[in-house]
């Protein structure tokens, strides 16, 4: 269908549109017009992605003088593929209606692991080894060597790509990762380098958050993007954590051991080069005198990781004299590693600011701040000079240099925390030195500064006013949309009491109460007998889950559950969890029914959908607060209070509730779906907690369902499931119009947009 939003003609690939999609587009368009950032919350299953894509592509079609480039960031490769598939549909539709003039180039970009087509490289198991294997075949010096000696293996795909040179371009179209691989195979060109090259010319680029937020990667990939781009962060409810993680480093004694090994290896290499090719080292020295800014001249294959600190700060200055020579730099690194080892060898927990850390480093090891700042680039340059290709072996020393550069660059928003053992296991010494970033706005600031419009969107962004404060920006539009439904297909409930009327909670003082565990067990036992197919349970932490499952096992609750459904448990092992999920799905498919025990903030809670019969009910046992005694969290809370005036309690509740919302939101992925959500904790009934849930859940949370006991919840569940099993009209009956056709929209445009349904 085709319709007007103010002065933009929107091409939408479906015949009908949801009203909330329409309002979403209107808001988005205004943000684009205002050239500002925006924050939009819309429930999952309402077609956020297609609304976004079709508006932005239509916007640039309608205004050819303002070419908008779309940079779409997703969290996982799977989401990336889904987005590109939607875009393909949209693109075909636009081509059909507008002819080839509407042609765009859209590509997905991912790591070598997902894009490589060379079978020998792909044989490596993880991402780092694939990268290293690729570099072994494509580094400039390897290729130079191969030119002389045909026995040196190279990658034929890359060679072909290089030979084609400027002729190696993608024709317009939408390319998923799979399409890219297929195209690469067909032409014999390396898809990874082709995609990286085409990123500059593409109208739409879909890639992972890290490519924009992690300065190490952003420097290489996203350098060339023009200002007129629209950046979209999808599923961005955790964006502050991603930002923080991008700038945090932790060093363990294992890292230090590895770093020492790496250093001696580098030393050998230097000796070898001195004996054979001293000219190279001298050339490097000269280059460093002129400054690192020339890095751009290096071949594309030789860059691998850029500076972890923000660009521009460093590139303009020359490398300090004391680390220009390879041996001297090596000495500095040795002293640094030695110093860190000394710091790790402590009995007490220590907390320090970067300034005092640098000062003490200066007095004890004689390394000043400026030297630290350049560590990362210097290492990079050295490894290039030494022609080291197996970079996956050198991850440890890279971590150390990463740490050094961050400490040297930032004085605010960070703290260094040394813990001699894990709080939960005080007997096992496991010293760790963490440089933790507290300020999410640091990593995302360059993105806000550089790009004209940044769109942050997700199914759960409530409370929506907190995000601008956390990320320190001023959105021109921030809106939360609700879902228009033909029937009440979600049924949230707050369960405060067990069947014996005793309150249930995972509060610290009630946690170990056997009565609570018994009541939780009773709830699940009752629920498995009335809910068909799949049930998902979320616990607040792994340790709590282990404890409660143990006690259920002892009291026979688990056995009772098994009479109705099979039980699967998420563990910290990824392979095990994948297997469990696989079997869980099979059990749901074949009608046996299954329960999945999972942990809020775990892998499953973030990335796996439990839609349709895979999740008819989700039970959130307790409120998933962060571990409040964690030193890092305390430091971050202090920083937030001092800098952004966010109260500790507010932040903790906000964070816990968004996790809870994220967990329960897993069950509903489309309007035709239905599911129940049980918040099993008495604290959810309190207004300050409840009000932080997203609007689309709150609007279905009836007052009557706020203070339930197990038997009442059971009754509601029975009724709800019976009601939902009845056939229903998809278009909606009576006055509740939930699907708009083209005529409806035209009528609405005549009557003025004020009369919209929201």
């Amino acid at each position, binding site marked *: 269908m085709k319709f007007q939003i103010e002065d933009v003609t929107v091409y939408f690939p479906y015949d009908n549109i949801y009203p909330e999609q329409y309002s979403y587009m209107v808001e988005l368009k205004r943000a684009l017009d205002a050239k500002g950032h925006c924050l939009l919350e819309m429930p999952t299953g309402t077609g956020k992605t297609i609304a976004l894509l079709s508006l932005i592509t239509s916007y640039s079609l309608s205004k050819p003088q303002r070419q908008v480039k779309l940079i779409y960031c997703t969290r996982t490769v799977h989401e990336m593929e889904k987005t590109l598939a939607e875009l393909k549909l949209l693109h075909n539709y636009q081509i059909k209606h507008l002819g080839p003039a509407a042609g765009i180039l859209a590509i997905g970009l991912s790591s070598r692991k997902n894009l490589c087509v060379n079978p020998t490289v792909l044989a490596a198991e993880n991402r780092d080894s694939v990268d290293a294997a690729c570099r072994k075949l494509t580094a400039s010096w390897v290729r130079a060597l191969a030119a002389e000696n045909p026995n040196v293996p190279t990658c034929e795909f890359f060679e072909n790509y290089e030979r084609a040179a400027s002729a190696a371009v993608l024709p317009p179209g939408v390319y998923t990762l799979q399409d890219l691989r297929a195209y690469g195979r067909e032409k014999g060109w390396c898809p990874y380098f082709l995609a990286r090259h085409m990123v500059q010319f593409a109208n739409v680029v879909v890639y992972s958050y890290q490519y924009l937020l992690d300065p190490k990667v952003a420097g290489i990939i996203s350098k060339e993007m023009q200002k007129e781009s629209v950046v979209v962060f999808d599923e961005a409810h955790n964006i502050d954590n991603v930002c923080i993680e991008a700038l945090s480093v932790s060093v363990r004694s294992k890292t230090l051991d590895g770093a020492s090994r790496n250093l001696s290896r580098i030393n050998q290499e230097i000796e070898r080069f001195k004996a054979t090719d001293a000219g190279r080292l001298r050339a490097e020295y000269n280059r460093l005198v002129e400054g690192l800014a020339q890095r751009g001249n290096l071949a594309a294959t030789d860059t691998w990781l850029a500076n972890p600190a923000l660009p521009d700060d460093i590139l303009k200055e020359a490398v300090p004299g004391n680390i220009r020579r390879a041996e001297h730099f090596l000495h500095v690194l040795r002293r640094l590693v030695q110093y860190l080892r000394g710091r790790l060898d402590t009995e007490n927990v220590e907390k320090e600011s970067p300034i005092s850390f640098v000062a003490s480093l200066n007095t004890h090891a004689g390394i000043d701040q400026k030297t630290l700042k350049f560590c990362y680039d210097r290492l990079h340059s050295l490894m290039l000079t030494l022609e080291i290709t197996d970079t996956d072996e050198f991850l440890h020393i890279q971590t150390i240099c990463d740490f050094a550069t961050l400490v040297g660059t930032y004085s605010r928003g960070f703290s260094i925390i040394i813990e001699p053992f894990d709080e939960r296991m005080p007997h096992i010494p496991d010293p760790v030195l963490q440089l933790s970033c507290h300020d999410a706005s640091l990593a995302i600031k360059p993105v806000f500064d550089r790009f004209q419009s940044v769109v942050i969107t997700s199914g759960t962004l409530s409370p929506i006013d907190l995000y601008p404060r956390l990320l320190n920006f001023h959105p021109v539009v921030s809106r939360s949309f609700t879902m228009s439904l033909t029937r009440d297909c979600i049924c949230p409930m707050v369960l405060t009491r067990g069947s014996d009327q005793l309150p249930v909670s995972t509060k610290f003082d009630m946690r170990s109460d056997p009565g609570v565990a018994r009541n939780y067990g009773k709830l699940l036992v009752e629920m498995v*007998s*009335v*809910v*068909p*197919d799949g049930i998902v349970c979320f616990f607040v932490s792994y340790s709590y889950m282990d404890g409660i499952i143990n006690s259920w096992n002892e009291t026979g609750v688990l056995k009772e559950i098994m009479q*109705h*459904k099979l039980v699967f448990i998420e563990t910290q092992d990824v392979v095990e969890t994948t297997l469990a999920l696989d079997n869980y799905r099979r059990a*749901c*498919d*074949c*009608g*046996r*029914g299954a329960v999945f025990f999972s942990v809020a903030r775990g892998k499953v809670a973030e990335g796996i959908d439990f839609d*349709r*019969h895979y999740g*008819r009910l989700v039970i959130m046992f307790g409120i998933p607060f962060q571990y409040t005694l964690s030193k890092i969290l305390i430091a971050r809370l202090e920083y937030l209070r001092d800098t952004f005036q966010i109260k500790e309690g507010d932040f903790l509740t906000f964070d816990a509730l968004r996790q809870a919302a994220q967990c329960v939101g897993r069950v509903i992925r489309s309007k035709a779906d239905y599911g129940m959500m049980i918040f099993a904790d008495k604290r959810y009934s309190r207004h300050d907690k409840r009000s932080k849930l997203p609007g689309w859940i709150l609007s279905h949370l*009836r*007052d*009557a369902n706020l203070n339930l006991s197990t038997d009442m919840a059971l*009754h509601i569940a*029975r009724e709800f*499931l*019976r*009601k*939902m*099993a*009845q*056939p229903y*009209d998809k278009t909606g*009956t*009576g006055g509740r119009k939930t699907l708009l056709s083209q005529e409806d929209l035209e009528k609405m445009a005549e009557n003025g947009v004020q009369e919209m349904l929201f």
Partner: protein
Amino acid sequence: MSTAEKRQSNGEAEEDDDDDDGDGHGLDAWERTYTDERSWEALQEDESGLLRPIDNKIIHHAQYRRRLRSLSTTAARIQKGLIRFLYIVVDLSRAASEMDFRPSRMVVIVKHVEAFVREFFDRNPLSQIGLVTIKDGVAHSLTELGGSPESHIKALMGKMECSGDSSLQNALNLVQGYLDQIPSYGHREVLILCSALSTCDPGDIMETIKQCKKSKIRCSVIGLSAEMFICKHLCQETGGIYSVAMDEVHFKELMLEHAPPPPAIAEFAIANLIKMGFPQRVAEGSISICSCHKEAKVGDGYICPRCKARVCELPTECRVCGLTLVSSPHLARSYHHLFPIVPFDEVSPRQNVLHHRPPKTCFGCQQSLLNPGNKPSLCVACPKCKQYFCIDCDIIYMRACITAQAVTALDIHSQSPLMKNEEYCCRLLCFPAAIRL
């Protein structure tokens, strides 16, 4: 003890009521407190916080219209499977003892199976039924395919106990084994009454479903508690209907929906000729040994025209020569399924307002067509004479007309002299006729 009995008898009384007005709304609130102790569940809070009785009427009406619509879309002279071989699978697993249906799911199921079996033979005199139960994860054949309602009901009444898990696969395997031997003109159907929410299967149920599809067995499921994916999948694959009962009344309706013959899917049904015999009644007072019970009986029987064996009931298959024995009224009764009556058109409230001022009252019962609050409610119009009716009247006419097949088979509009008077709706005219029959 006595309370249980009372409940039982109350349940039956309720059922009698249902026969009268079809929807079970005939019970007053005070009566309901006796049939069901949980009277508070019949209340719900509305937007303004007031307590109101749950208004299931709208849901029921919507469902009724939907059903009608689905029927009318297929109404265009389709082939119907009149000779049906139906297995009813009754799930007597642990879940059947749950008390959410009063007095228990099992009792309710058995009661309605009984009603269904009678209704079924009434509508499909040429068809046969067999009963299978699932208990302790194993499927048992209770009765073999046969045409006598009494024997089925008796067998089921004797097996009223439940335990263990349910196994859909075992039941399907068993039924498939029986139905595979049915000649090609017969329609193979399974109706599963499923109260369990999980199924413990020995193997891959998907494979079994595929086989059922291959043997052209139409599987339908009526659930008693919630929608299960595997049941839905089974019905989708084999072309059956999946439904879930909201309450006892709804359950009964859903059961009875399976009584009229389903449309024959072209590839499933191969039309061919069947040899049938029309037996004569045994002379009054003569004594002969009947072939079905193997005992001597006086009078009251039929004699197979081919082998002269005596059978007690019709329709059946002759035990001796295997001839299908029917009587001509049986054939006639099956006949009306082939010519369904045309349903009333639905008039949506909006359309109602747009076109012309609609009449304020139902043409049939003279009740107001407006909901409380002056909102127009759903109503229907006769496609021929354009009179408006309320849904309740529509339901009654629809039922009456099906019973009064002889009348509807005639095209009243062209033939009846009474129709000159345009005061009456065409459907209304046949209504008294139906009552007379």
